[in-house]
């Protein structure tokens, strides 16, 4: 039963991934600008442009191009980045760990802040604390991440000189030996404490800025879910048995209220990825977001579509994973 459920979800995942590849291909081919002409430059002659077109796989019918594109994808070939002149996959390998580290840090901050605020907001409904929590969550959803990043940079670096201006490590600080690509983890594993402190110091502002919107979502969902649970009969029974409100909230309500939060965890990965597009370039975090922002400006479509494909794949996989975890936690959903 469980194996069947996981298998069904995996097959669904494969179908979506195939569809994603068609979508990115279509987007790459409706580009109005001629990419070969763009790279060759305005002064190149027609012959050079045609040669380049052939080299980039932009010749032949659409079906031929798609077959070539899929064949490349299966071999891990995402084409050549026009701006860095390196294979896109190699670029993505270089930049992905920084974004993954940032995203995970932001997700942790969001959970550590969002869940307690949401729980407290519901437990003391309509108190000043609840109003503050709700105001913070609405504000968090309304703040443009790129503005928060600029204000954070102004306050943290220029005014208070507390935070670094950008990057993952200070200049002159050698990166830790690569195991995971996450500087925080790698430097801890290597026992290089000075590097660890420096990496955390650099991670602080980008991770906080990125977490803003997601904290807000967690506060909202946790609060709504807690209020729902607190209205149930078994909570009243627990209270009637003489348990204190604190015990009822923490032992009985929270456990049941957190399941809906799990379901939206996957969606938040998407929000964080969208955010990384915006704030990495401001805070000079050398990740996929910065790479994508530069690729967008340079009309580097191989890089743009490669990043889009990889991010959509991670996002879809994250949602499928959450789906499976949720199904394992709640047998009723396996049949759905």
């Amino acid at each position, binding site marked *: 039963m469980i194996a069947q459920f996981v298998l069904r979800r995996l097959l669904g995942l494969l179908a*979506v991934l195939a*569809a*994603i590849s068609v*979508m*990115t291909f279509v*987007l*790459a081919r*409706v*580009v*109005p*600008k001629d990419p070969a002409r763009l790279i060759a430059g305005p002064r190149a002659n027609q012959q050079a442009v045609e040669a380049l077109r052939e080299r980039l796989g932009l010749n032949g019918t659409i079906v031929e191009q798609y077959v070539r594109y899929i064949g490349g994808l299966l071999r891990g070939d995402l084409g050549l980045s026009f701006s860095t002149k390196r294979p896109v996959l190699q670029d993505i390998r270089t930049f992905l760990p920084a974004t993954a580290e940032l995203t995970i840090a932001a997700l942790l901050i969001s959970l550590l802040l969002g869940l307690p605020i949401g729980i407290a907001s519901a437990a003391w409904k309509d108190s000043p604390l609840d109003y503050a929590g709700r105001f913070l969550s*609405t*504000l968090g*959803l*309304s*703040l*443009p991440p*790129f*503005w928060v990043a*600029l*204000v954070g*940079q*102004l306050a943290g670096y*220029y005014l208070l000189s507390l935070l670094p201006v950008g990057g993952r490590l200070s200049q002159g600080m050698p990166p830790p030996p690569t195991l995971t690509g996450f500087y925080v983890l790698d430097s801890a594993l290597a026992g290089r404490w000075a590097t660890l402190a420096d990496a955390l110091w650099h991670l602080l502002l980008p991770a906080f800025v990125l977490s803003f919107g997601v904290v807000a*979502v967690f506060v*909202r*969902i946790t609060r*709504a*879910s807690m*209020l*729902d649970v607190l209205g149930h009969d078994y909570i009243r029974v627990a209270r009637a048995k003489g348990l204190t409100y604190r015990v009822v909230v923490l032992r009985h309500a929270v456990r049941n209220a957190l399941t809906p939060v799990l379901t*939206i965890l996957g969606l938040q*990965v*998407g*929000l964080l*990825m*969208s*955010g990384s*597009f*915006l704030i990495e370039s*401001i805070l000079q975090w050398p990740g996929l977001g910065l790479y*994508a*922002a530069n690729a*967008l*400006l340079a*009309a580097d*479509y191989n890089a*743009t*579509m490669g*990043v*889009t494909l990889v*991010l*959509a794949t991670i*996002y*879809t996989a994250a949602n499928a994973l959450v789906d499976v975890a949720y199904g394992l936690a709640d047998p009723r959903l396996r049949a759905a």
Partner: protein
Amino acid sequence: MSRFLRQSRLNGLTLGLVVVILLAALLGEVAAPHSPRKQNLANRLQPPSAEHWFGTDDYGRDIFSRVLSGARISIQVAAVVLGIAVTLGTLIGAVAGLLGGWVDAVLMRLTDLFLAFPALVLASAIGAALGSNLTNTMLALSMVYWPWYARLARGQVMALSQRDFVQAARALGMSDASILRRHMLRNILPILLVQISLDVGYVILYTSALSFLGLGAQRPEPEWGLMLNDSRRFVQTAPWTMFYPGLALTLAVLAFNLLGDGLRDYLDPRLRSQRA
């Protein structure tokens, strides 16, 4: 209207803020004390003063006038994007919900495909493919938003199909199209309205985000995200160039978020916990 205002003290404030933003969108360029596009290099990067309330930017343009005029772009884009997304999405969702079967399956897989991408990632990929300008930004954002309305409409239509009054209309021989037009749309409308008012804020935010990335509005348009991008070089030396466009953007998004929340509570208190 008065019941909406009485429901919460916040609703009055929200409505006031929304009216101010809409007025700025309507009259901003006329009411602005200076031209939002006229350069005056002798006057560049001036701090806020009685003459220039929000200071001037690196081309000596009055930031207050630019912020005020920027409201029109944001509201216009939101109106076009949601106009397309709501029409297309509701139509597709309603057809899927009414017909069911393979039509439903095909249309829903299509929406799933669009939802498989993080919103801004998809919008920037579409924007990049079409080329950088505001029209393409509108198209890209419409493509991001329609699947949500398709899902919403489909769910509502399927739920309404089971209701007695729809069954009765069907028994009387009414066609699906007239049932949809005469009976269902009226029932879906309140939920659509709440969703639209919440999405106005996010469309404004995403429009600015795309312009910030260089994909949306192009210079010298007074678009808030573009102004923020231009201000990046002056964060330290002229922070007002960054502060006011960001504040305007935040207030606009906040206003429509609060309006959506208020409308949701007003139209149906049971909806409160359904969507965060």
